[in-house]
């Protein structure tokens, strides 16, 4: 990493999700020097964990592939994975930033042949699959990972397994002595694109995500649809592996709730509408989806998506915030309890599977930013002059869909470019 060169005319982009990648490419294609850092071993962020995108229901990998091709083709852009920013000091036009890179134990010789993976035995919970599946101690984070380079889990170091991996590699790509490294650079502007994380569903006590197998989150549900994912692309119940054809969706799970996240996460209504189409895709007419909601907030141009789902006779909408879930011990069915506020009917409805449409919260807490930034009540970064040359892109600024995240990324790239142009102007 010591070979990375940066000046106060360089833009640092933190976070390699769709927003960070977009901002970095836009700025680099305008001729600016850009360093993109990502804490995970691969770029892609949360969209790489989705099955399909609303509103067009295309695969996220295709948009990402175009972006990566643009990134690879651009010599102004340097990508650093497994890297975090540990300190930022200074002011707009002149920041000193400290980057900390964790060892991957695999160098650029790696051809992703997969021999090391076959050689090792140890397994760990897969981060990419929210722990629903195991991965080996030598692994590629996911099929479409960029860079296409393996990783050795740090817990392997010092074990025989690690040595087996090294012995299996024909390309001399594994270096078990790799160390954490740190470097301090000067940059002119910072684009903060660290995105969102799903609200911890275990905290919603009455829904029992921590107690009942057949209560999953919306992000876990997305993973089920992946043909290479934990269930091989099948919608099944975690308790017994049976097909889940009668699925309940609970909206605002952790959002719009003063006990949890105060804000409306804005995406989860659309995400649920989309996920009902997954059921139709897998089971054709042989399924039942029940959406328990307070209000459906499908924003502007995607309202027709909502209307199409409403027209689906197998999808029922129940105006009710579910009060609690219990479990039928014999069948493993979750039973939803509450009151349908249209007519005040009490219900106790069993379903095969429950999907909690969990809220989106900022992935970096206010206290964890390496420099003071102005955030709103919900922890998202504000567009505030006090933030100087630090600009938020995508879901670090609000709960957004990809379309809006990308717009926000382009806007932040423009703001950062203005800072760099000003610096370049004063420096002649």
């Amino acid at each position, binding site marked *: 990493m010591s070979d990375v060169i940066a000046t106060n005319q360089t833009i640092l982009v933190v976070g390699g999700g769709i927003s960070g990648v977009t901002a970095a490419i836009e700025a680099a294609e305008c001729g600016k020097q850009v360093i993109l850092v990502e804490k995970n071993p691969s770029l892609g962020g949360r969209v790489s964990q989705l099955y399909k995108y609303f509103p067009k229901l295309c695969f996220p990998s295709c948009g990402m592939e175009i972006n990566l091709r643009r990134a690879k083709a651009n010599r102004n852009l340097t990508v650093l994975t497994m890297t975090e920013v540990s300190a930022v000091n200074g002011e707009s036009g002149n920041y000193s930033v400290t980057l900390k890179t964790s060892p991957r134990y695999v160098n650029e010789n790696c051809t992703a042949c997969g021999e090391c993976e076959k050689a090792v035995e140890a397994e760990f919970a897969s981060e990419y699959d929210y722990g629903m599946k195991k991965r080996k101690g030598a692994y590629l984070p996911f099929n479409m990972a960029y860079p296409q380079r393996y990783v050795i889990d740090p817990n392997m170091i010092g074990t025989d397994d690690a040595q087996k991996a090294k012995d299996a590699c024909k390309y001399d790509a594994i270096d078990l002595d790799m160390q954490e490294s740190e470097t301090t650079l000067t940059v002119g502007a910072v684009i903060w694109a660290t995105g969102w994380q799903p609200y911890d569903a275990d905290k919603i006590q*009455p829904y029992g995500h921590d107690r009942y197998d057949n209560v999953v989150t919306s992000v876990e549900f997305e993973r089920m649809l992946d043909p290479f994912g934990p269930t091989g692309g099948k919608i099944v119940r975690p308790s017994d592996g049976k097909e889940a054809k009668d699925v309940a969706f609970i909206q605002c799970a952790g959002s*719009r*709730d003063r006990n949890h996240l105060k804000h409306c996460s804005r995406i989860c209504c659309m995400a649920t509408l989309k996920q009902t189409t997954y059921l139709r895709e897998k089971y054709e007419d042989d399924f039942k989806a029940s959406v328990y909601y307070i209000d459906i907030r499908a924003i502007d141009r995607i309202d027709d998506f909502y209307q199409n789902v409403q027209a689906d006779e197998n999808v029922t909408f129940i105006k009710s*915030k579910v*009060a609690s879930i219990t479990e039928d011990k014999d069948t493993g069915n979750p039973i939803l309890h*509450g*009151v349908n*506020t249209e007519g005040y009917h009490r219900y106790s409805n069993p379903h095969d599977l429950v999907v909690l449409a969990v809220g989106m919260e900022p992935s970096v807490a206010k206290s964890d930013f390496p420099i003071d930034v102005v955030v709103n009540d919900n922890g998202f970064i504000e567009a505030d002059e006090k933030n100087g040359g630090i600009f938020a892109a995508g879901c670090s600024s609000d709960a957004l869909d990809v379309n809006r995240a990308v717009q926000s990324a382009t806007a932040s790239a423009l703001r950062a470019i203005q800072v760099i142009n000003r610096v370049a102007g004063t420096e002649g």
Partner: protein
Amino acid sequence: MTDANQQMVEQYRNNFLREVEDNVEEGGWVKMCMQCGVCSGSCPLGPHWDHPPQELFMMIRAGKRDEVLQSSSMWMCTSCYNCIVRCPRELPITHIMHGLAHYAKRLGIAPKNQPTHKFAQLFWNNLTKTGRVNELKLGLALYFMNGISEGIKTSLKMKDVGLGMMMTKRLSPMELIGGHKCKDTSGLQAILKKAEELEAARIPVAGK
């Protein structure tokens, strides 16, 4: 219709929500309800009463004054707090329920034969006499609430419990004559009288 009730009807005309906001304990919260239904779905009494909390709040906004104030629903609230801990808007639902009951009672339009209503009055009468609850008299008053014959039946049924309590010194037979009291009963009466005056200046009360 009582005089106090009539006075409030005239004062607020069709704005029952305002009336609740001004006069019911924690009534200002009612407009914050987003009708999600979690309180109703969480209430253990749900199937047994006319209107669960969320429905009452909607009825208040819809101006259904008589249906709300004459309902027995809020008298059934057991203060279990299930609703409060789950309400996404943090409404103090339990307190509003008791506030509504209290307000209806004040205006003299609470359901007459509702048992919790009756018990609340017995409890108050018992407590304010001496500043201490006289368990024995309260218990008996409760048993005989619905007449002599039912009173005797209930008393016999509860006999063993009463004896047990006496054995363990939780209940003294001496309570029947006089009973224990606070140090300054007349001071307490004066405080309550003053409080009543202050409250009466704020909200009218039936029969006064």
